[in-house]
C-alpha cells in the first residue's frame, strides 16, 4: 500500500452537526497528519464524541466536508472503518464472551481469516498485559483491564488509525501511565492516534498536535508548547484562598497579569522571581509556582476552568 506522508489521514472543513436546535459541532476545520498523535481537548459537551462519531461515519454530518484516508465519509465509511480501530467512550465489550473470545469474535467482523487470528490474539493479549486473563469472563475484569482489552480489540484489524474517546477517564494514575506507554508504543510504530481528553497531562504527554474545543468550536490548534507560548506567559503563581486586594494591586504593578477563577488567583508573568521574593515577605498562604500549561491556555481562551 502506498502511504503518502504528505496527505493527511483526516481532513475536515466546515464540519457541522446539530441535534435539533442545539449545535453540537459548529463548523470546524482540521487536518490530521499521518503517524502523529492528534488530540481534541475540551470540557464536557464540547463536541468531541460527536466529532469522532462523524469520523467513523456513525453520525451523519449536517454540513461541511470530511475525508478519512482520502475517502469521503460517511459515503465510504465502510471501507475506512476496515482500516480504523475505535476505543469508544463507553465500554462495549461483549459480556457473553471471555477475554480471548472477545478478540476472536471481533476479528471475525473484519473478515480476518481464522488461521491468522490465533497468533494475532496472543500478540494483542501480551500487548495489553492480559495474557494470564485470556479465559476470564469480561465481567470479572477491573476497569483498567477492560480498557486495555478494548484497546487490544481496536487493534485486531491492524489499523492505520486508532481513535480513542477519553482513553483513561475514570482510571487510576498507575493504569493511566500503563496506557500512555502503550499508546506511545503504537505511535512509534507509525499508527496515527486520534484521541479526546479533558486531562491536560494526557494531552501534554501524548499529543503532537491538538485542538482546543469548547461549545462545538475550535478555539485554537497547535502543539502543546506552541499553544502555551502563544497564549500565556511562561510562569504562573497560583494563590489559593481569599485574595488580598492591596497585595494584588501591588503585584499588578510588577509586570504581571492577574486572573481570578473560583477561589484562586493566577498571576502570569515572564519571570516569577521578583514576584516570589515579594510574596515570600508578605504572604503566608498557599502558593503554587509552576510553569504554565494547557490548563492556563484553556482558561485564557474560554475564561473557564477545564477541570471540574
Amino acid at each position, binding site marked *: 500500500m502506498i502511504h503518502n506522508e504528505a496527505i493527511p489521514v483526516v481532513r475536515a472543513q466546515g464540519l457541522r452537526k446539530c*441535534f435539533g436546535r442545539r449545535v453540537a459541532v459548529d463548523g470546524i476545520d482540521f487536518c490530521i497528519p499521518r503517524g502523529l498523535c492528534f488530540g481534541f481537548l475540551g470540557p464536557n459537551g464540547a463536541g468531541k464524541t460527536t466529532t469522532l462519531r462523524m469520523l*467513523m461515519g*456513525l*453520525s*451523519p454530518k449536517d454540513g461541511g466536508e470530511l475525508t478519512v484516508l482520502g475517502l469521503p465519509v460517511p459515503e465510504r465509511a*465502510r*471501507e475506512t*472503518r*476496515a482500516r480504523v*480501530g*475505535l476505543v*469508544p467512550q*463507553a*465500554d*462495549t*465489550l*461483549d*459480556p*457473553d*464472551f471471555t477475554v480471548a*473470545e472477545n478478540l476472536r*469474535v*471481533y476479528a*471475525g*467482523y*473484519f*473478515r480476518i481469516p481464522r488461521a491468522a487470528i490465533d497468533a494475532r490474539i496472543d500478540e494483542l493479549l501480551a500487548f495489553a498485559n492480559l495474557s494470564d486473563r485470556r479465559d476470564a469472563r469480561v465481567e470479572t475484569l477491573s476497569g483498567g483491564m477492560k480498557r486495555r482489552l478494548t484497546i487490544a480489540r*481496536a487493534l485486531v*484489524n491492524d489499523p492505520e488509525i486508532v481513535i480513542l474517546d477519553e482513553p483513561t477517564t475514570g482510571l487510576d494514575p498507575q493504569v493511566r501511565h500503563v496506557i500512555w506507554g502503550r499508546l506511545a508504543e503504537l505511535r512509534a510504530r507509525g499508527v496515527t492516534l486520534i484521541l479526546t481528553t479533558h486531562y491536560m497531562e494526557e494531552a501534554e504527554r501524548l499529543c503532537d498536535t491538538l485542538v482546543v474545543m469548547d461549545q462545538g468550536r475550535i478555539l485554537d490548534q497547535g502543539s502543546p508548547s506552541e499553544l502555551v507560548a502563544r497564549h500565556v506567559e511562561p510562569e504562573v503563581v497560583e494563590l489559593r484562598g481569599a485574595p488580598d486586594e492591596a497585595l494584588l494591586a501591588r503585584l499588578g504593578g510588577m509586570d504581571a497579569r492577574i486572573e481570578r477563577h473560583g477561589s484562586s488567583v493566577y498571576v502570569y508573568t515572564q519571570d516569577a522571581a521578583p514576584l516570589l521574593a515579594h510574596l515570600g515577605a508578605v504572604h503566608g498562604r498557599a502558593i503554587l509556582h509552576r510553569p504554565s500549561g494547557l490548563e492556563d491556555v484553556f482558561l485564557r481562551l474560554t475564561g473557564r476552568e477545564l477541570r471540574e
Partner: protein
Amino acid sequence: MKPWLDLDWRLPRLRRDALAVWRRNFLVWQRIIGPALVLNFGEPLIYLLGLGLGLGAFVGEVGGLPYLAFLASGIVASSAMVTVSYEGMYSVYTRMVPQKTYDALLATPLDIDDILAGEMLWCASKGVISAAAILLVAAALGVVGGFGALWALPVVFLVGLAFAGPAMAMSAVAGNYDFFNYYFVLVVTPMFMLCGVFYPLDTLPAGVQSLAQWLPLTHAVALIRPLVLGLPSSDVLLHLGVLFAYALGFYLLAVALVRRRLIV
C-alpha cells in the same frame, strides 16, 4: 409531521458479513444449550401431552384428523412464532441497547443492514431448532406422517424470518422491556388463537376468518400442517408469498427504524 417520512429508507445491501453476526449469536447459544433445549423440548411436550391427549380424549377428531395430530402440526408453526418473537424482542433489544453490542459492531465494517440480516437469520434458526424439537416429540407420539415431515423445517425457517422482522422493528422503537407486552398481548396471543393452531379456521365467524387471512401464522399453519402429517398441500405459492412479504417488508422497516435509533 409525518415521522415515517424522516426515516432513511435506502435499500439495505445483503452481504456475507451478516453471517458473522449469526456466528456470534450461535457461539453464545452454544454455552446455554442445556437450558435452551430444556425449553425447546419441555414446553411442547407438556402442551402435546396435556392438551393433545387430555383434551383430545373429549374432542376426538378435528377436521378429519386425530386431535393430537392436528394440534402437534399447529404447534410446530406457533412455537416458531413464539421463539422468534422472544429472540427478536428481548434478545435483540438487549444487544442493541443495554449491552451496546451494536455499537461495537458498528465500529467495524458492518452496517445496520448486515447486523439486522444476521439477527434475522439467527432468529429464524432458533425457530427451526424449536420446531425440530416439537417434530421429534410429535414423531415419538406417532403423529408425524414420515420423513417427508422434515420439509417443514425449511418452511419454518421462512416463517421465522417473517416473524423476526416485526419483532426487530418493535425492538427498534422500544424504550424498555415492558413495551414488548403490547406486542405479545395484541399480536402474538391473538394469532395463537385465530390462526388455526388449536381448532380449524372455519369454526370462526366469517369476519374473523377474513382477518385471519392477513396474518402470517395462518399461512404458516396452512403450509406446515400438511407437510408434518404427510397430507396434500394447497395454495402453496400464496402462503409462501405472504410469508416472504412479511419477512422482506418488516426487514426493511426494522433497518430504517434502527438507523434512526443508532445513526444519530
